[in-house]
């Protein structure tokens, strides 16, 4: 089956040890996590994991079900790129003298919609937000200026769907509690 990049989001209760529980679902199946980001979600006390991974759909559907099986996981969802709006942030640290020597720098930064965060005598820090192909293409252009450090964040994503499935899930659980 065809491999493609999937985005898995996982919403969990605020309990210790969840990262381990989620990551072992991937490692057991020899799946490499491409990127990972974890943060509090918009709902108080609920954490959101965003994980990207190359695999096929059947495998990823299994992964999502196994993740959801963990007791403190509320919900997990599987997306392809067309179903979400997503971004990454990349930071580039480049030696200042090399950049200043070259008149095209300003043009590169403009063209890539990047921005400069900090300039010192020794180095310049450039930030670029975008998809990975965009942060990579800036990387390629800056290569000639001798990039000293480069780092890319994990993906963050929100869905395009008008339905808010997590909210619906939480409402269902609220009802379940009230019925008890």
């Amino acid at each position: 089956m065809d491999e493609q990049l999937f985005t898995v989001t996982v919403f969990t209760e605020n309990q210790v040890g969840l990262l381990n529980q989620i990551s072992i679902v991937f490692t057991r199946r020899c799946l490499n996590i491409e990127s990972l980001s974890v943060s509090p979600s918009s709902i108080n006390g609920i954490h959101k994991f965003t994980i990207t991974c190359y695999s096929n759909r059947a495998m990823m559907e299994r992964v999502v079900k196994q993740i959801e099986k963990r007791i403190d996981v509320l919900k997990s969802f599987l997306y392809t790129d067309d179903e979400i709006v997503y971004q990454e942030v990349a930071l580039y640290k480049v030696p200042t003298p090399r950049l200043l020597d070259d008149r095209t720098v300003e043009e590169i930064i403009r063209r890539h919609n990047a921005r400069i965060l900090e300039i010192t005598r020794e180095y310049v820090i450039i930030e670029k937000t975008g998809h990975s192909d965009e942060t990579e293409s800036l990387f390629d252009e800056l290569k000639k200026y001798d990039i000293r450090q480069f780092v890319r964040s994990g993906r963050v994503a929100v869905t395009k769907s008008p339905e808010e499935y997590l909210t619906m899930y939480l409402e269902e659980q609220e009802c379940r509690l009230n019925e008890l």
Partner: protein
Amino acid sequence: MKELISGSDALIQSLILEGTDMVFGYPGGSIMPVYDRLFDYQDRLKHILVRHEQGATHAAQGYARVTGRTGVVIVTSGPAATNVITGLSDALMDSTPMVVVTGQVATPFLGFDAFQETDVVGITQPITKWSYQIRRAEDVAWAVARAFYIASTGRPGPVVLDITKDAQVGMTEFDYKPCNYIRSYNPRPDIKESDLLKAAELINRAERPMILSGHGVMISGAEAELAELAEKSDIPVATTLLGLSTIPSDHPLYKGMLGMHGNIGPNVNTNRADLIIAIGMRFDDRITGNVKTYARNAKVLHIDIDSSEFGKNIPVDATIHGDARDALLKLLPLIEPRKRTRWLGMFDKPQQIESEQVIERELHPAGPKMTMGEVAAKVSEATGHRAIVVTDVGQNQMLSARYSRYSEPRSIVTSGGLGTMGFGLPAAIGAKMGRPDRTVCFFTGDGGLQMTIQELGTIMEYGTAVKIILLNNNFLGNVRQWQALFFKGRFSQTPLVNPDFVAIAGAYGIPAENVETRDQLDGAIGRMLGHDGPYLINVNIDETDMVFPMTPAGGNVDFVMLNQTEIYPVD
């Protein structure tokens, strides 16, 4: 102000409030405060001192499997905690409710490689339903309540509570509230009306449906509903290994066991059926063989409490997500009465061939040494087919499961998913303690018995009336069989040099006898079952005997070996 009690008291009182009457355990440094407090609760909570922590987990599993209640284990930290790993893994695979309490070093020592510190939560997360470290006395009640709720509901499984020493000695108010709700965990999902309608339509329309009854039927207590469905729609029933006894062996619609060493009829007819109705089972590879050809003419209806099983191994056409008994109760009114004489007749020929070519040879072998099948059949007969059958792993497991007959639910205790040698003896102890009113017959091999043989000490101490049938071929028989069939008969490291088992039993005060020849068998079985207490018979088994029929691993379910040279003729 409310009265304060220690974390240890809170733990013990919580266990009692959850209905625990018996715990299996072994003391040690990091759990001593709990053991000290246990001393004062002996009238309310019986502690069974096993001889090895692995034994505690399997005993708790045996207890849980026959009673349907949660088995409880208490052990110390470090090596004791690592000794329970096999039992946890086994219980997860075989959906067994179990709560294992492990002691842990005091909180300030965590992470410093203190004496007997192990990362118990880290190690056990992949092999438990939930694993939690209790670091404060005031969290004990909450954690225990949650542990029992998680272990026993939904698809049952093992839970670990790792309790630090300071949490055991810390003082807390105690106000126990059982858990019945966890936001992120819904163990009893509402069954969807649309799923029921679709399922009923599939069943009503099918010409050749077959029910695969698994452990889930036993767990949910759906045996009566299973029989009702089968009878109403005249559907043949096959069971998995763990589903044995979900329908009586003499039920006219019971067509046998599935799997590598299952009966020919249900295996071969899996590929003739036009509808597979799988209830509380998970399409293990020992059942499916080659998934590409499995049930190739059938639609698949899967009923299970664990939705992650849907489509995991086999594509499904319809599902009912929920408790098996709930699902069947709701489904039954939608099912139209049917007669399927022709389809049921298709089980006759494979059954006949199996009887003539496999069963007959096993029950009436030509040679002087005995076969495991004939022993199991005789023991079953002698118990009126009413015993709880506990097995170890290997040929003894397959043959005692095959040749025993079952007339009551919850009559099989065996390690299915993990196939743990050494499971049997402690599991039999737990089973007998859980159901002292029933006869417990434990079939084992000479290899597996020696993996947990120290539990004979537990039997001795508590006088547990387990009937031990040692099917002794002086070989690791199951491996020998594969070597004979697939490795050119090179018996690498499978002959066993064995001790005098009767003498060993005798040293533990357990009456025992050798059964050298066939003419001694009936008498020995009679003495074993007639004796009021534990008993061991050491039966001289033909090491060349093999388990047949056999569908080799990864092969098609309708490719069945009748013996070393003959294949079942599929038409």
